[in-house]
């Protein structure tokens, strides 16, 4: 028994209707698969973006806010870590490095981040193009930055909508290095010495005398030697300005947990970016479950509606099937033709749906990367394939309904019905 010649003939006969059925199923499967694929891509993309930030220490507050500021370079404000806790942190001996990070400026919409060369080297993983900054007026740019090595620029005060081209600090910075792509918002960043950020905001350089605040000469430190051109640690702890956060690189895993515990105090908070992300993922996971459930329910309703359409279509074919029975076809053959017809539409829609999902996730990932800087791996995995297979399997079961109705159709009445 080979029902396929007739199934293909029926598909050709109703090519428009068949294509519409397939397109609807493909769209439904594509949207549902895109949700799971995108959520997975978001997890892996954000986890990869946070990978290099081992331990973050900041002033007490929202870990999520600090994570968004430090790792994802989102505009916003957090409490500054300053005073004695900051001085102790900068002297932390169990970390390979303690890199302060500072924000507040931008270049053509891209964030300008102040930090130390140690963090730049850490982010580069030995693949830095050019060199790291060794002077206060030098910068390293992310892989996606519009600036090239050797170019000079002036930073603009503020970030995002707050930034105005006319509100430039005036100091010219030269690009001396470029980071490899990290798939994080840091790819678009312009990284300058933290001293530059402090200096352009009138906070000194952390290496000596603080410029007078208010009236000229008032508030000047009394006994600190000034090294305005020095960058990087050791800082002058007495004149160290406040910072939004610091990134610590513990030497070992034990040190990491030890440092996190030690810096969780009433004056500081310390966290691994991964633990904050896990909390976000749990929330995201719940959302995914709800959205996936809704999408699957919609898919099933659609498959049901399409099977109703197929049922109506099969009623139009009942005379043709009666003719086949008169020519010697068995009930099983008729069942097989009707079932295969429905299954080909549903399975075809499911398979094409995976392509639709790949297209949707590709577009959404590109838009998301453009907006956030986080590179998402848009791809279809086994989860999405399983979803499409589940739809096809359920469709295969539901396709029994129209097939069984035709199976039970009395031949003679169908022959007379169209005579």
């Amino acid at each position, binding site marked *: 028994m080979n029902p396929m010649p007739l199934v293909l003939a029926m598909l050709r006969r109703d090519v428009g209707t068949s294509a519409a059925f397939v397109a609807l199923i493909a769209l439904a499967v594509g949207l549902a698969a895109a949700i799971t694929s995108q959520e997975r891509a978001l997890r892996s993309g954000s986890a990869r973006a946070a990978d290099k930030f081992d331990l973050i220490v900041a002033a007490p507050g929202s870990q999520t806010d600090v994570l968004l500021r430090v790792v994802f370079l989102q505009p916003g404000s957090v409490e500054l870590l300053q005073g004695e806790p900051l001085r102790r942190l900068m002297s932390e001996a169990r970390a390979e490095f303690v890199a302060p990070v500072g924000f507040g400026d931008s270049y053509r919409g891209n964030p300008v981040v102040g930090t130390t060369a140690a963090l730049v080297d850490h982010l580069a993983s030995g693949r830095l193009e050019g060199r790291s900054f060794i002077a206060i007026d030098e910068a390293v740019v992310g892989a996606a930055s519009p600036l090239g090595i050797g170019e000079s620029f002036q930073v603009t005060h503020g970030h995002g909508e707050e930034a105005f081209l006319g509100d430039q600090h005036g100091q010219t910075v030269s690009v001396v290095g470029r980071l490899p792509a990290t798939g994080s918002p840091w790819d678009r960043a312009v990284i300058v010495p933290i001293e530059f950020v402090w200096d352009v905001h009138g906070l000194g350089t952390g290496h000596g005398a603080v410029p007078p605040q208010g009236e000229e000469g008032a508030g000047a430190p009394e006994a600190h030697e000034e090294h305005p051109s020095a960058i990087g640690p050791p800082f002058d702890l007495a004149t160290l300005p406040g910072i939004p956060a610091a990134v610590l690189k513990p030497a070992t895993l034990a040190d990491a947990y030890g440092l996190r515990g030690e810096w969780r105090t009433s004056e500081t908070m310390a966290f691994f970016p991964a633990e904050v992300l896990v909390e976000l993922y749990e929330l995201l996971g719940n959302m995914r479950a709800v959205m996936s459930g809704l999408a699957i329910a919609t898919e099933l309703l659609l498959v049901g509606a399409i099977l109703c359409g197929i049922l109506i279509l099969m009623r139009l074919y009942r005379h043709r099937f009666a003719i086949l029975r*008169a020519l*010697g076809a*068995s009930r099983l053959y008729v069942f097989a033709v009707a079932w295969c017809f429905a299954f080909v539409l549903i399975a075809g829609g499911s398979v094409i749906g995976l392509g639709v999902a790949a297209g949707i996730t590709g577009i959404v990932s590109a838009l998301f990367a453009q907006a956030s800087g986080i590179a998402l791996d848009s791809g279809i995995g086994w989860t999405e394939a399983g979803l499409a297979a589940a739809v096809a399997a359920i469709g295969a079961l539901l396709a029994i309904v129209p097939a069984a109705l035709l199976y039970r159709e009395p031949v*003679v009445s169908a022959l*007379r019905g169209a005579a």
Partner: protein
Amino acid sequence: MLFAEGIRLAFSDHRGTSFTALDIDTFRPEPGKLTAIAGPSGSGKSTLLYVLAGLQPPQAGRVTADGMDIYSLGESRRDAWRRRTIGFVFQDFHLIPELSLVGNVALPATFGRSPGSRRRASELLVALGVPTDRRSVGMLSRGEQQRVAIARALAFDPPVILADEPTASLDGAAATDVRAILKRLAGEGRTVVVVSHDDAVLSAADATLRLDHGRPTAGFPMAAE
């Protein structure tokens, strides 16, 4: 040898009133003969054809083929018997436009196993004078389409041909061709039973059963007109 005896069949109309569809003591169309079934509309001609084909079980009586009661077979075995034994020809051909000419003729081969079916389909089309260079059914005249339908009926080389008004949709020349083909098939030793209003078919028939309200009014057993 196809033989129907004591066939009784009654249907009910939409008001529940029962009426006789068939009441035939014996009907034995002979191999090698063209047997016609005639009568007014609703006289039971097509119903008798369906009974003979194993599609419509009678309420009483039996149909035998070479001594075997076909309604004693299970449905799937009766389907297989019909596939091997009966070739059906319809008034409106009922070809499938989306299939090629050969695909239409070889279609019954997809119901079961039939190696070499496409080659046989081509041979049948040639034998029946169908222009095989035409790519689709829609490019054929109605007479040619009926010849394709006859070729399809012959796909399994069945010993019995049942034709329901095979010339009713055809013009004069095409109808003459189809009559000649049916006559030729009977001449080859097949049992050919034709339901028809066509006087030319009735004239060409070796025997005619005339029905009215499901009952024979003339012609059988084997009273050639």
